[in-house]
């Protein structure tokens, strides 16, 4: 509708109509924003299987003598090792500055790649810039499966 005919049309209160149109457009805009916003914000939520860190499980049959199996539990990198038939679990974070240590099967030691700290197979520090041991992690063994909860 052009402006000339709009001005002549005095009986239908153009200001009312204009306000109605504005509200209708605004309402549709809000509804559309909700229709897009709700699924998108929901999508960005943490999926259930990722937010529940749950428990770490290691079948003992997979753990050979002198090797390590790494896993994640509550944001920590956990090393499960088997030395002389004995199973131990350590938090892999080096107590020096938090780098994740590596298991070296040949020497039976944990070595930190950042500043060269060395830990024995029971977590005790043996060399490098660190006095504290690796944090040992409690676990249960049930039906030949090691669980950290």
């Amino acid at each position, binding site marked *: 509708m052009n402006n000339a005919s709009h001005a002549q049309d005095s009986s239908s209160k153009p200001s009312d109509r204009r306000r109605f149109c504005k509200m209708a457009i605004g309402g549709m805009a809000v509804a559309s924003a909700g229709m897009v916003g709700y*699924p*998108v914000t*929901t*999508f*960005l*939520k943490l*999926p*259930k299987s990722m937010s529940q860190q749950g428990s770490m499980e290691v079948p003992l049959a997979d753990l050979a003598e002198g090797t390590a199996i790494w896993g994640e539990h509550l944001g920590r990198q956990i090393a499960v090792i088997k030395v002389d038939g004995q199973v131990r679990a350590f938090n892999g974070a080096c107590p020096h500055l938090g780098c994740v240590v590596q298991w070296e099967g040949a020497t039976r030691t944990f070595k930190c790649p950042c500043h060269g700290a060395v830990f024995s197979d029971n977590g005790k520090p043996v060399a490098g810039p660190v006095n504290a041991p690796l944090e040992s992690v409690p676990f249960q063994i049930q039906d030949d499966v090691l669980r950290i909860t």
Partner: protein
Amino acid sequence: MRVLRSIYQGLDDRYQLTPLIEKNVTRKWVPRTLGWSACFGGLALLVFLIQVFTGILLLIYYKPDPGRAWDSVTFIKSNVPMGWLIQRVHVVGANVMIALVLMHMARIAYFKIYRSPRELHWVSGVVLLSLTVFLAFTGYLLPWTNLSYWGASVGTEIPGAIPFVGEHVVTWARRGPGISGETLGFFFAMHIWVLPAGLVIFMAMHFAMIRRTGISRPL
């Protein structure tokens, strides 16, 4: 509302936004005989923007690795809240986008809008159609299902019919003799970066040309 208005007022005082908006949106002159069929091009752009947006969302979980691609798409569809919706919108959007581009082109062809001075509009439009089809084709492989594997297998075989260079084109497009993890990585890079970037560049040219020549008036 008052806050928004004063923010707009402040920006308007500094950058004179109102005349810009009036010229391009609220008081823009278009031929009065323009019908709803003139919307197809703009709708194709809208669907492209939806594809970019949903594509970025899917990228949060998708893993372009033959061992994990299918699992990650299944994870999106069944574990991520509303993931099924975002994934479906992206899939359906691809089909809708191709349909809209074809409807747009059909209108341009039917009303002979491609004639001088708008020949290059048509040429850039054909490039845009090709890029859209390639986007859909590369995206089809990404879920790494049987269907997408064979789809990519048959699709990449088509240039094999080109005399002399055909076989080389097939091997190049597959990154090897057959569809493999290398193909997946290549298609992924094409799908999320190269083709959309090309699409944006050609869209910018397409729109700039339309701005210069104006919208075609019906005969």
